[in-house]
């Protein structure tokens, strides 16, 4: 079990992380969500012992991490956002190095190496130079390197950045398998759909501060507008042209990005016709419309007033 209590970090006047606390249990995946610069990577760095917090504490199975060489660090594996591999070396050489950092050697080292290569589907490329790998293969090896010492807790800092959909799916499958084996996963991302697929618990961070921390379902319920209507407008007006929609009964949120209008509402049956009537009355024609249930993107928008990608 991983317990994070009141982690706080300042750089000069800038508060990077403000009193972040959560608990992650075995077999649970906790998602740290937020836009770039929200404080996710700083939080992970403090949990992994890369960065000393100004205050707060990290406990692994009830024990604090006391020093660089504290054996409790063996319980934790880190998948950094930057590829942590030597491209000049083979996959085996990389895995041997990272296994040796955790005191693995001989037959034990080779056994673990075979197991992680099998897990990430790179057994047939084990002797190849990493520089010859595709981006997706490198990401999978990056994950495998963190698993060499069979850690109980895995910290994943945006592990799918720059990866093609096929490799992303492969990584998700690996992570689901690890979760099935009872590992604790802490997963940072700004892709809401990733968090929705993988995470049991969602922690939304903005400007270093936790603004939501609950199960996926409970976080969804934070949004009054559980339905979203997206309309493609032919002739949007000047800035703020859509503000009048806020006065339409039942409309919870309104956001526009170019020709795209997103309207959040509680009752689709009653509010959607009123929205379309308002558009018609104000001379806005549309070519396409669709509806969907509220997602984490909407939750973030509701809680912060901004889209994750635009934040």
């Amino acid at each position: 079990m991983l317990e994070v209590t009141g982690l706080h970090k300042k750089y000069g006047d800038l508060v990077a992380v403000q009193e972040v606390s959560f608990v992650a249990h075995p077999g649970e995946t906790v998602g740290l969500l937020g836009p770039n610069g929200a404080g996710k990577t700083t939080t992970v760095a403090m949990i992994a012992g890369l960065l000393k917090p100004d205050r707060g504490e990290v406990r692994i199975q009830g024990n604090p991490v006391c020093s660089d060489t504290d054996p409790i660090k063996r319980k934790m594996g880190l998948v950094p956002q930057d590829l942590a591999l030597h491209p000049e070396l083979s996959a085996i050489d990389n895995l041997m190095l990272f296994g040796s950092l955790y005191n693995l050697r001989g037959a034990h080292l080779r056994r673990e190496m075979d197991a992680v290569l099998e897990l990430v589907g790179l057994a047939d490329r084990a002797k190849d130079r990493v520089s010859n790998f595709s981006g997706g293969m490198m990401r999978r090896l990056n994950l495998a390197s963190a698993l060499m010492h069979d850690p109980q807790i895995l910290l994943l800092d945006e592990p799918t950045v720059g990866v093609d959909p096929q490799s992303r799916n492969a990584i998700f499958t690996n992570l689901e398998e690890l979760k099935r084996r009872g590992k604790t996963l802490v997963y940072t991302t700004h892709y809401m759909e990733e968090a929705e697929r993988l995470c049991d618990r969602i922690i939304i961070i903005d400007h270093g501060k936790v603004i939501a921390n609950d199960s996926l379902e409970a976080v969804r319920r934070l949004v009054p507008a559980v339905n979203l209507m997206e309309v493609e407008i032919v002739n949007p007006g000047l800035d703020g042209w859509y503000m009048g929609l806020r006065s339409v009964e039942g409309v919870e949120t309104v956001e526009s990005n170019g020709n795209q209008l997103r309207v959040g509402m509680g009752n689709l049956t009653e509010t959607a016709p009123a929205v379309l009537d308002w558009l018609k009355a104000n001379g806005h024609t549309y070519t396409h419309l669709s509806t969907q249930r509220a997602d984490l993107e909407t939750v973030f928008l509701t809680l912060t007033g901004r889209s994750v990608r635009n934040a």
Partner: protein
Amino acid sequence: MSWTAYEALVRRDLKLFFRDRRAVLMSFAAPILIGSFFGYLFGGVTGSGDTAKIPVAVIDQDGSSISRHLVAGIASDKALELRQVTLDQANSEIRAGKLTVAAVIPKDFGDHAAKALFRATDKPEITFMYDPSHGAELAMVRGMFTQHAMEAVSSEAMGGNSKLLDETMKEVQGANGMNPADQKSLVQLLGSVQQWNARLNANPQASGEPRPGLSMPYTVREEAILAHKGAQYNAYGHAFGGMGVQFILMMGMDAGLVLLLQRQGGIWKRLRAAPISRATIVAARVTSAMIDAVVIQFVIFGFARVVFGVRVEGSMLGFFLLAVAIGLMTGGFGMLVAGLGKTVEATRGLAILATLMMVMLGGAWVPAFLFPQWLQKVTFAVPTRWAVDGLDGMTWRGLGFDAAIAPIAALIGFAVLFTGLAVWRFRWDG
């Protein structure tokens, strides 16, 4: 310290170094090429190659027996390459850098020089025209002219030209204002020379008689003090030592820059997330740099041994331990580069400058004995000076192990200092 992690990190660094073609080329081929060039430039192996002669010209405007005697003496000197040219030719060739020194022997030089030998009046003037970038050669040529001029003038004044001797005798006897005691002594001296000449002229075949005139009052036997009798000075020894030290330092600097680069990337995070101490990381980095340095040292000296006959004439143990100490100092230097630097881009230029300064002051390019005295003392504060002096001692100077102790101790001291500073200043948080 985790020995498994330590071994793995050292192995990793060595693999990365030896798989990097550019690094290998810079560390092995470059010192061999430049060391070969510098070795050749500084004389190669003494006795086996051509040593450079100083190109000198003489413009003999006198044409007297004395001036011809002087020119013949200069021409016979092994250190000079003499040509007779016109004044204009000398001027233009010096300006073009084709000639180092030209001496102008003026008209009536012989006549005036012989008389001035006994009386300090009317001394003739030899003009030396020279290339100002060759000040040292001017001093050498002037010294050689002095020797040959004294021999030529005194030989003529006291021997072959009795007319000159008679005229000088008359001038001395009739000189007004000369101290009477000096006058008497000089007349007696000239009279004795006249008698000696008369005796030699009466029996020109007499053997064993010295030639009249002044000559060098000693002969010279040159003996280079080297490792053993019969050994030859091998300039490649110093050149390969110096260039080896330079490129080993460059390798150390690169190792530091790689560490900086790693600190900005994921590998550093993974390293710091593992349960290993900072001492393990530092020790592994210094050890791998040390092993690289020893391998480089042995490969380039191996080349110098096979191709140029450079030998470790002194203590082999001293040479080996010195290579290890140079390696440790290099590892510490690399750590210092990483410790003081913030980013690779901002650090590279300064690190190169620091490396070149250390190499230059250490005497790796030109031997430190050519430096001014004060600079020679100051450079003992530079680790490369100890490295180069130590290698000179163990190779061509042929000194024993005791001569290696001080350089080894100094280099290890620098290694500890550099590493300590680096660890103190290093930003471990990345």
